[in-house]
């Protein structure tokens, strides 16, 4: 996973459509208004020598100077009739951290379009997407809540957080930058706001860090095979690699894989791990050096959870392998789609009927984003290489 940036440009985008007006109408001390101020201070404390650019967006993006940005705590700032968040996504620079403040107001078709844009612009560029939902006081109109484009007035009041309306920060950038900026936001601001409810998730190509090194993983048992170091002259610093000699046609080992799941990523069930295998003969190479067609189940016998880590049993039935020689086995372990435990707030904050405390199509958007990310990256929890000698 790429390391935290030492210096960074932070692009702050504020959604200035009228649907956002309600967050500042109750006054400039709402959780929303305080968050707008905290965004800047968190950026400065995260990267003191970094650069912050300010912009607002409705149908188009307009650059702002800092004094104009500070006016975002007043209702008149929110005067754009229409929103086009896709343009902001298009403007995203993968080397920067992009922070988008929005109510994620979108129709069903908008959500699909937005997911598609984020996929092309961010997910496929190995960027992480942080979604921070924060509930704030609200007094105003909520638009287009159904297919008839009905709208309704909503007053959350100031004292009952359960009635507050959510707005969202989309954080787009390197995983480490997104996570770091979120922690700074917590410290610098909204964690201390009274009555503040918030939820945060990072959708990213990475779910564990560092990726467990096979060379450092403990082999619990080994039968009819031995570990060696001298089969292939390999880079000794490559800790993903281990080398074995088979002593019998049926042999196996069990390795314990310990990993640290990254904070704020979607948790997964270790019982639904999807292994994938690439197996080829290296020496003497087959005619075209093609992969030998194998089934994952030919090698991966079982997964067990052992004291908070994963025990993988690899078996080797070498009788059918094409002759003596050195083989390369490349094993990747990824949680299956079913393994992920989608946070409850995706659906709990999703608008189902006229309810000002919820967001239209939120579940569709977040689930779609997560699914797209899973399809593109299939985030890994381990990637091992074995050189295996059949004698």
């Amino acid at each position, binding site marked *: 996973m790429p390391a935290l940036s030492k210096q960074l440009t932070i692009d702050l985008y504020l959604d200035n459509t009228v649907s956002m007006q309600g967050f500042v109408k109750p006054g400039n001390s709402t959780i929303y208004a305080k968050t707008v101020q905290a965004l800047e201070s968190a950026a400065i404390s995260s990267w003191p020598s970094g650069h912050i650019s300010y912009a607002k967006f409705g149908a188009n993006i307009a650059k702002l100077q800092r004094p104009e940005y500070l006016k975002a705590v007043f209702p008149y700032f929110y005067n754009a009739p229409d929103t086009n968040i896709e343009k902001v996504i298009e403007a995203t620079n993968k080397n920067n951290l992009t922070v988008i403040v929005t109510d994620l107001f979108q129709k069903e078709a908008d959500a699909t379009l937005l997911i598609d844009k984020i996929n092309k612009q961010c997910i496929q560029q190995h960027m992480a997407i942080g979604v921070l939902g924060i509930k704030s006081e609200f007094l105003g109109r909520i638009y287009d809540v159904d297919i008839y484009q009905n709208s309704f007035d909503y007053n959350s009041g100031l004292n009952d957080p359960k009635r507050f309306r959510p707005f969202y920060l989309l954080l787009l950038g390197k995983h480490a930058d997104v996570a770091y900026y979120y922690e700074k936001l917590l410290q610098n601001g909204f964690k201390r706001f009274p009555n503040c409810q918030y939820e945060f998730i990072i959708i990213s190509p990475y779910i564990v860090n560092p990726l467990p090194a096979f060379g450092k993983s403990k082999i619990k048992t080994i039968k009819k095979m031995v570990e060696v*170091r001298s089969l292939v002259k390999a880079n000794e610093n490559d800790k993903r690699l281990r080398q074995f000699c088979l*002593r019998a046609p049926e042999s196996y080992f069990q390795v314990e894989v310990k990993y640290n799941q990254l904070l704020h990523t979607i948790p997964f069930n270790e019982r639904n791990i999807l292994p994938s295998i690439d197996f080829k003969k290296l020496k003497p190479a087959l005619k075209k050096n093609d992969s030998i067609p194998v089934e994952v189940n030919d090698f991966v016998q079982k997964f067990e959870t052992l004291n908070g880590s994963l025990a993988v049993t690899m078996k080797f039935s070498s009788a059918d392998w094409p002759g003596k020689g050195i083989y390369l086995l490349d094993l990747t372990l990824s949680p299956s789609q079913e393994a992920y435990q989608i946070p409850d707030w995706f659906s709990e904050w999703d608008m189902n009927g006229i309810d000002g405390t919820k967001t239209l199509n939120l579940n569709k958007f977040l689930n779609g984003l997560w699914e797209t990310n899973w399809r593109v990256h299939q985030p890994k929890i381990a990637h091992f290489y074995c050189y295996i000698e059949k004698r």
Partner: protein
Amino acid sequence: MKQPLHQRINWTDILGILGCFVFFSFLALYLENYILNEVIIVSADVTMEDWLNNVFHMWTMVGIGIALLFIIIWYAWGNSVAIDRVENTGKRVGWWILFCLLIVTTLASVFIITADEGAWVGHILFGVDVLGFFYFATALFSPSAVKYSPPGAQTLRRIINR
């Protein structure tokens, strides 16, 4: 009157003992790896190379070192006794005592040379190296007074014309 020590030492014997040492060390450190690599299965998280270096080679060289010490003792003792015209049972007993002590050392290897499978091959090779070194070094390169005390020494010397 006894001759001074340097005159009593047969330098051919010393070179022969050193030759045996080099031969059995080479056997233990290189040639036997080919056998061990085929039969030994080491335990989890130990590589074959580490097992060879840290277990077999190390302990076998300790065993060969002990055998060398016993050979020196045997040689020094053999130099200090008189040459008899007839075979002396006491000298043969002395050799057997040292040899039996080395057998005990070899038996101890069962506890120090361990592996998941095939450790017995390691024990046999340990025995071959340690006992073989002592036997051949003493049978072929003992001082005159005890040169026929090791069993089979006479035959062996005849075979190699010594």
